[in-house]
């Protein structure tokens, strides 16, 4: 019986900070104020299906996709190397990965601006080799790079935590049976680490698709992403109804993509999945 009591504060918490806000967003997205009266309508969602907003959404998805692929390509080997280190070294290296995330995201992104700008660190460095200054900042590449830099730990850590728990004797068994290293990776290591990979993908993709700070600073406000669009509705236009509808669309999309990923995640026991 006592166990139930323990959960009440959490229930209250979830009600206050999850259920009620969600209901409010849903309410706003389905209503509109016409001549001072609140009416139920689907106009906010209809508005979203104009080409310009679909284009914005598509662009956000593409950028988030690049970012996720980039994180996976860099993050997986990183996690694998980490998992095979000695205990003390491991702790230290994990610390190094975590450390930047303790710093404010704005600060980290501003630092990249200093590195990438025309008279910045990178161009001065290239200047030593006689390479003409190039435009790095305010390009799509800068935005993707900023996202990868900021979200990489979210990819490395879940994969690492799965790899480090993996039973090494399985690899030894595969070696005994004559599998080469590529085969071991394809048939043993990677399938076993799939839950980590999937939760890594989810954890990188979600913030990447909704970011507005990174695209604003490193993209110089040139790229209207869905996160910027939502921010604009709330802070500038004051159209909370359309802003809420955009947020709902985003949430549905994320839910769908997680459901799709979930189909490939057979090993739910490992606890890597969010579902």
């Amino acid at each position: 019986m006592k166990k139930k009591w323990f959960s009440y504060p959490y229930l209250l918490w979830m009600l206050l900070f999850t259920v009620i806000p969600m209901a409010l967003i849903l309410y706003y997205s389905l209503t509109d104020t016409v001549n001072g009266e609140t009416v139920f309508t689907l106009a906010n969602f209809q508005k979203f299906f104009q080409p310009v907003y679909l284009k914005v959404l598509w662009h956000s998805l593409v950028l988030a996709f690049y970012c996720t692929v980039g994180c996976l390509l860099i993050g997986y080997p990183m996690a694998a190397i980490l998992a095979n280190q000695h205990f003390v070294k491991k702790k230290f290296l994990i610390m190094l990965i975590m450390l930047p995330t303790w710093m404010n995201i704005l600060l980290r992104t501003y630092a990249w601006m200093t590195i990438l700008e025309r008279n910045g660190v990178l161009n001065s460095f290239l200047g030593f080799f006689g390479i003409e200054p190039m435009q790095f900042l305010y390009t799509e590449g800068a935005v993707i790079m900023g996202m990868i830099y900021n979200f990489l730990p979210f990819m490395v850590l879940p994969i690492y935590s799965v790899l480090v728990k993996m039973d090494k004797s399985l690899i030894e068994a595969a070696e005994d049976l004559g599998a080469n290293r590529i085969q071991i990776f394809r048939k043993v290591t990677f399938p076993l680490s799939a839950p980590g990979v999937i939760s890594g993908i989810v954890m990188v993709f979600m913030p990447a698709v909704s970011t507005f700070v990174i695209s604003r600073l490193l993209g110089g406000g040139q790229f209207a992403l869905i996160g910027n669009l939502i921010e604009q509705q709330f802070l500038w236009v004051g159209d909370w109804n359309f802003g809420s509808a955009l947020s709902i669309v985003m949430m549905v999309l994320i839910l769908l993509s997680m459901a799709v990923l979930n189909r490939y995640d057979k090993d739910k026991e490992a606890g890597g999945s969010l579902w």
Partner: protein
Amino acid sequence: MEVRKLQKSFWKKLGITLLLTVSVFGLVACGDKKDDQKTISVYNWGLYIDPNVLDMFEEETGIKVQYDEFSTNEDMYIKVKSGGSKYDIIIPSDYMIEKMIKEDMLAELNFDNIPNYANVDDQFKNLAYDPDGKYSVPYMWGTVGIVYNKTMVEEPITSWNALWDEKYKKQIFMLDSPRDSIGVALKLMGYGFNAENTEQLEIAKEKLIEQRPLVLSYVVDEVRDAMLAGEAAMALVWSGEGMYLTWNDENLEYVIPEEGSNIWFDSIVIPKDAPHKEEAEAFINFLCRPDIAKLNVEEIGYATPIPAAQELLAPEIKDDPMGYPSADIIAKCEVFRDPGEFLSEYDRVWTEVKASK
């Protein structure tokens, strides 16, 4: 034993949490009780006053000032509109004041309590956003213009056309502010800074899409550092930024293009539900005193609407034709009007410009 200890500490923690929650609610509920003390709450832009001025006001009048800051008009509007925060003084911009007057959010001022209003230059009274001058007293004003780097731009800039000059491809900063950037395009196409209909907005949109490949980036506050670092040849900026940049780098020059520009005002208003209207009027009166206005201008760098305060400034500041443009330039400038529901059209056009690549 261990479990019981844990449980005990859990209940203790829960108790403390509940106690704290109750006391916070209690404090909020009791907040009104302090009212009999003379305190006014002021809500102003960030970094937009000389902090000494507040101390001086407290010393002279015995009225305490509780001071809060906002970063955009829209932030302020949402907070004040939602109620609960009882401010006595707010300093928003022109079009926002117009909107607040329309929505009956502002109190009419009693100018008997503000004799120093006489110090305000007549050309800045009764402007379009408050045509009868009943609700607001101008605090600061400025323009929008182009700041350019003389080492990168050969000929002096005189026209908004410079922002569409192919020579400066990828060397132009635009303002990441829909009303300002769209306003410039409208002006260049021969319309006013305030679009009258969707057709004009569409034409401005085409013009901005045409400019897209030339623009290095759309920025707001970053423009200061970027221009000082020589990132771009020119930028669309507000006059305060322009002044700051010219003071800090002799290669930079600020101009108000000859076609005319937007002139904006941040003015002092009192919301309708202000608990201390009389004290608030005393504060407005204080801000209109020339020596006080001078302190504020020196701190923040924008232009004062009080000529006697301007006279007190250093000659190189008060005679700067770009900081304090002459009457014939001002005559060519327009004030932003509140577009009402039309604002969402501005937003759509701006999104299309941004998404055009």
